[in-house]
């Protein structure tokens, strides 16, 4: 079976999931915690919106990037299932729309996610004033439009060339040469532009703070999530009878990526932490001070889920080849890195929300409300201090939307590309000899 059919049962399930997400988002709109509802910011809704949009758009982006990197590196092993990454990259289109909503929100102030978007604040703030050359609406909205637009262009280009290769690929592989040139072109563009975008989308939530490790760090997070989702997708499709040629050998390599990039993520996490801890500069340290003091469960849980567990579970080679352990770690890491983004976004926006509420309280001359807001940070707030049920529901909604887009694209072409020059290599991929049965069954 090389033609995927997106059956109506799955469609219904995914649509139900999207519906759940929408319901949860509507509920979130009215469920702002009392402490920060004062400014009418709907901060919980908008942070969830930003969080999931960036997380899933990032996965789409990294899928495209991985495809480009592997093609440029003459890799062959992944070719059997490269259509999955092509399909994932299509989420860039809804991702761009969602991000533009946020961009328009910055301009018209229907949300207050970013401290730097408030002109009155910036005017009285030397740090923000200094950054205003980059942290402004032109860069945010225009940059998003241009950069994500460019990514979409490359995604479409690679997809159409890949399909053209299916239809009219010949033995001289001229189409594949074209694909390789496009891939190599995309890599430097992707590397620089994604860094700038993640600074705007996520790092600028803590407008006074910056970290030179941030772009690497969040990209590693995306990479692990994308790999985890690919493993789950492959195992799911195999269970439905597709991709029979994809074996545990391919999953083993994906498992290695999952393991290696979890360690890489930890390395960057620690780098960012230790440099800031050692230098001990006030406006940098506050980032971790806030998170350790007020978000201890998220902060330490993040390390346990995303480093300790996958490190110990995936260390042995057999666990990278078995469905059970792979599924478990993939689900764990996918959720874990969603949680990681949660921790990047929520504390900073909470601070901004309190700020807005405080200003609101001052302007309407309710002294006690201002007091209220000041205490908000030290108390437990569902949806900020820890993901609540509404956050989980929204997450499921976005995941279902992502999968809906991916399955729709998967159904449009052959699951296994027909004329890729490395197809043969991929079908014979073997990374480790099976020593489990003495005597061998080769």
């Amino acid at each position, binding site marked *: 079976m090389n033609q995927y059919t997106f059956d109506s049962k799955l469609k219904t399930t995914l649509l139900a999931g999207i519906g759940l997400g929408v319901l949860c988002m509507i509920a979130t709109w009215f469920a702002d915690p009392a402490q920060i509802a004062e400014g009418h910011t709907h901060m919980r809704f908008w942070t969830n919106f930003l969080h999931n949009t960036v997380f899933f758009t990032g996965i789409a982006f990294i899928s495209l990037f991985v495809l480009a990197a592997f093609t440029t590196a003459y890799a062959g092993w992944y070719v059997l299932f490269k259509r999955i990454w092509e399909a994932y990259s299509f989420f860039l289109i809804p991702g761009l729309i969602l991000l533009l909503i946020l961009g328009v929100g910055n301009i018209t102030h229907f949300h207050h996610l970013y401290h730097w978007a408030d002109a009155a604040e910036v005017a009285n703030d030397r740090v923000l004033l200094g950054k205003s050359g980059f942290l402004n609406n032109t860069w945010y909205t225009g940059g998003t439009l241009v950069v994500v637009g460019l990514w979409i262009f490359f995604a479409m280009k690679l997809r159409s060339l890949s399909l053209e290769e299916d239809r009219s690929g010949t033995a001289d592989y001229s189409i594949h040469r074209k694909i390789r040139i496009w891939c190599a072109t995309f890599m430097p563009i992707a590397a620089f532009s994604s860094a700038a975008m993640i600074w705007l989308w996520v790092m600028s939530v803590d407008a006074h703070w910056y970290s030179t490790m941030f772009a690497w760090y969040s990209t590693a997070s995306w990479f692990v999530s994308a790999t985890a989702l690919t493993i789950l997708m492959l195992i799911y499709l195999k269970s439905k009878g597709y991709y029979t040629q994809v074996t545990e050998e391919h999953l083993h390599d994906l498992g290695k990526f999952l393991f290696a990039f979890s360690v890489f993520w930890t390395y960057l996490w*620690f780098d960012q*932490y*230790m440099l800031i*801890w*050692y230098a*001990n500069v006030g406006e940098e340290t506050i980032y971790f001070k806030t998170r350790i003091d007020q978000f201890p469960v998220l902060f330490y849980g993040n390390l346990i889920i995303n480093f300790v567990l996958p490190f110990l579970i995936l*260390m042995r080679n057999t666990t990278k080849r078995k469905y059970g352990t792979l599924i478990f770690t993939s689900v764990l890491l996918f959720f874990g890195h969603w949680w990681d983004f949660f921790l990047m976004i929520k504390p900073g926006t909470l601070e901004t929300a309190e700020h807005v509420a405080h200003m609101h309280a001052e302007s309407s001359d309710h002294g006690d409300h201002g007091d209220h807001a000041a205490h908000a940070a030290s108390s437990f707030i569902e949806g900020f201090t820890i993901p609540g049920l509404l956050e989980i529901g929204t997450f499921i909604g976005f995941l279902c939307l992502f999968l809906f887009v991916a399955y729709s694209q998967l159904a449009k072409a052959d699951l296994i590309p027909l004329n890729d020059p490395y197809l043969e290599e991929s079908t014979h991929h*073997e990374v480790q*000899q*099976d*020593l*489990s*049965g*003495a*005597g*061998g*069954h*080769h």
Partner: protein
Amino acid sequence: MKDQNKEVLYGLYDDDEILLDAVKQARENHLDIWDVFTPFPVHGLDPILGLAESRLHIAGFIYGAIGTAIAFFGMSWVFTRDWPIIFGGKPYWSVPAFIPVTFELTVLLCAIGMVVSFYIVNGQGFGVDNPTLDDRITDDKFCIAFQTNGKSESEIEKLRSFFSESGASEVNSKTI
């Protein structure tokens, strides 16, 4: 065993594909292969030979864990009990500063431990001179070897016929 000389009957093959088939055939005939020598690692040979999975990585994990413990607890002891010094206004027991050293020592002990273990297990090392059956198996020949100490003429004849059937280009015997 060490002092006893081994009488070895070995066949040389010209190609790794032929070797793989020969090994398969020998296993099917329940011939007791002493060892197989190849000039480079032949993919898929280990499972056909029925070798057990190497335990070297388990040793590696233990060496690494020892490295972690030595570095982390060593530094903890030095900087809190033995010779406490304040660096840059940080507490005595400043864990983040220990992490890089801990990591390095983990990798170092793991790597050195695995190399040394590998050499000891394989009887290799400086000044150790292992006899080779034939110099050409370090270059372009693939070899299957049987030990023939105490084997009867008919058994040896059976091995010889196996070699000729399985496509060996040369059959020799040697005492090492």
